[in-house]
């Protein structure tokens, strides 16, 4: 890989009172690549997502965007760079229809009057290019299934043409078939050249869609694996802490993406 990473974190630390939530965490995201962020509860996954999305900035550390130093202090900063986040709660307005949710906050209008036809047209186009199957874009989001809602939330995050997409446990509430649809969607988004950070507990999902897995344990990096070569046992033992850290790091060290 010759391009610099889209997003690169180094030495990220964050402390909540007496708890060291993150310590010297490193992470790199490249265009067209899915990185899974794995780790046990309390390992610092959500904290790291909040650092990147600007919801909870880091105390220390360096963030580089396409090779240049940036500061992400507010969610707005992350948006401006091109970082989109889909939170676990999805943050949708149940009473609005799919079109309304997709364009929420960026409605197409002429002097304040909504252009519903144009918005619906683009919404249909987006749903079609992403092969998302929903009964009707004019349906209130409340009437959609969990998987469909998740798909709508992800496609909404793509509206601003971001370069990095953060997904917080997108498959947690989904059934088997919905999960496989969602993984297809993630691959499609990846193929459009986006960098994706996928928080997940599910080893199956990680194996299916991720290129690399970054494991956090107790707020520190605890290994970076190439999904195609690493065994599931290796990853799991790294998550649970059963693995010998030195070995894990040595494995990681052979990975060129790791500095």
């Amino acid at each position, binding site marked *: 890989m010759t391009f610099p990473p889209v997003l690169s974190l180094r030495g990220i630390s964050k402390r909540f009172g007496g708890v060291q939530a993150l310590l010297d965490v490193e992470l790199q995201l490249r265009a067209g690549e899915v990185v899974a962020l794995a780790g046990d509860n309390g390992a610092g996954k959500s904290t790291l997502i909040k650092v990147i999305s600007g919801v909870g900035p880091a105390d220390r550390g360096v963030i580089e965007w396409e090779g240049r130093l940036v500061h992400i202090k507010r969610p707005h900063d992350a948006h401006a760079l091109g970082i989109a986040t889909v939170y676990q709660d999805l943050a949708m307005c149940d009473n609005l229809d799919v079109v309304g949710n997709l364009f*929420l906050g960026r409605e197409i209008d002429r002097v304040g009057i909504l252009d519903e036809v144009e918005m619906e047209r683009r919404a249909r186009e987006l749903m079609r290019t992403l092969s998302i199957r929903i009964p009707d874009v004019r349906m209130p989001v409340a009437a959609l299934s969990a998987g469909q809602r998740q798909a709508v939330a992800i496609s909404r995050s793509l509206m601003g043409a971001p370069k990095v997409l953060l997904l917080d446990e997108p498959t947690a509430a989904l059934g088997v078939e919905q999960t496989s649809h969602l993984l297809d969607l993630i691959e499609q988004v990846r193929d459009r050249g986006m960098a994706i950070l996928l928080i997940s507990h599910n080893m199956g999902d990680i194996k299916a869609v991720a290129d690399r897995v970054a494991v956090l344990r107790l707020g520190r990096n605890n290994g970076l694996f190439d999904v195609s070569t690493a065994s599931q046992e290796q990853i799991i033992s790294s998550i649970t802490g059963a693995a010998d850290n030195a070995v894990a790091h040595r494995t990681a060290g052979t990975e060129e993406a790791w500095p």
Partner: protein
Amino acid sequence: MSGGGSPRDAGTGGGAGTGTATPGRGPRTRGWQRSLKGYADEVRGRVRVGERGPILVVLGLIVIWLIFQSLDDNFLSPRNLSNLSVEIVGTGLVAVGIVFVLLIGEIDLSVGSVSGLSGAVFAVLNVNLGMPEWLAVIVGVASGMAVGAFQGAFFAWLGVPAFVVTLAGLLVWNGLTLYLLGASGTINIDEEGLVASLTSEYFGAMAVAYGLAAIGTAGYLLAALRHRNRNKAAGMPNRPLSEIWVRGGALAVLAFGTAHTLNRFQGLPLALLIFLVVLVVSDYVLRRTRYGRKVYALGGGVEAARRAGVGVERVRIAMFMVSGTLAAIGGLFVASGLTSASPTTARAAGSGMLLINAIAAAVIGGTSLFGGRGSPWSVLLGVLVIQSIASGMALLGVEDSVQFMITGGVLLAAVAADSLSRRAETPGGRPRAG
């Protein structure tokens, strides 16, 4: 009536265009069936997300009218219906204000007192202090807007629950009204004046009522057809043309029927015209503008709205200002109907009858107490139900005590229906969010 905004919602107010289609009409049978199927699907979808169509309320209204007509022949006389169309306006305007606040998931309990206050402010300034009538009207309405801004700020910035702020307001503004009227007691307003004419002015020329009916019907048809053509040009699926004509036809029957009835008495009342204009404008702002979308978004999820860049605090304050303003305007119509502002009516306003009626009107019409669902048009239907009951019972000489119990019961039934539909909203009982 979701925030979704397609012509299917374009208000007939009575929703009279729904469900009236009868299948099997010659060569177009196929189109009809498709239209019916589409409609059935739509109803199913709505019921699934907890939206009651207006059809039940329309049926309820018809039943109420038939009952009162059978008890008293005069109930459906042009005279009584015309009076009814004027009587609904005061409560109706207050209820439209309530709809704005309900849409963001809050409540304003002070509207009854605020309407009393604006009437008193107007009467004291105009009659006692000799201020020009137009200026007194402006000050009266502005007082309502100021009250709304004050209460909204308390809620939005200090985080005091809206029902507590406005409950305190209910007492405070009622106290202020009584204080203002205290020195003079009942103030009779000029019977020839501007405010009095609000409820006493009629457009006697038949052409006015019929013309309005024609404009309304044509406006609906043009908007619906234009939307259809744009949809077609963009290559998107459309609802069948027959449906637009059925709805337009139903609207025409309703509009011209109303115009005919009004013309058999004194013509189109000014009050009704103002009410309809307020409904059309509020509905347009809420459903078709960027700003209105923010309001619905706020009702659908505060966090989602905030993340989408909605200025939550400012929208909240604005909605309370709208409700205060419309309550004040409604108060002027109430004062106009009585041609006076008196401590007795102020006490009555403070007792909450107007408040209850306004909330009931909004909720009966289908606006949800839980935010994000409803429309100003719901008020027209709801206030007709409420005022028909009140008017019918007054005609029959039913005592206040019984009226109170019945109105309270109707409100409770409407709110219960709202709560039940909300419970049905989440398919499979899945917990919301996360």
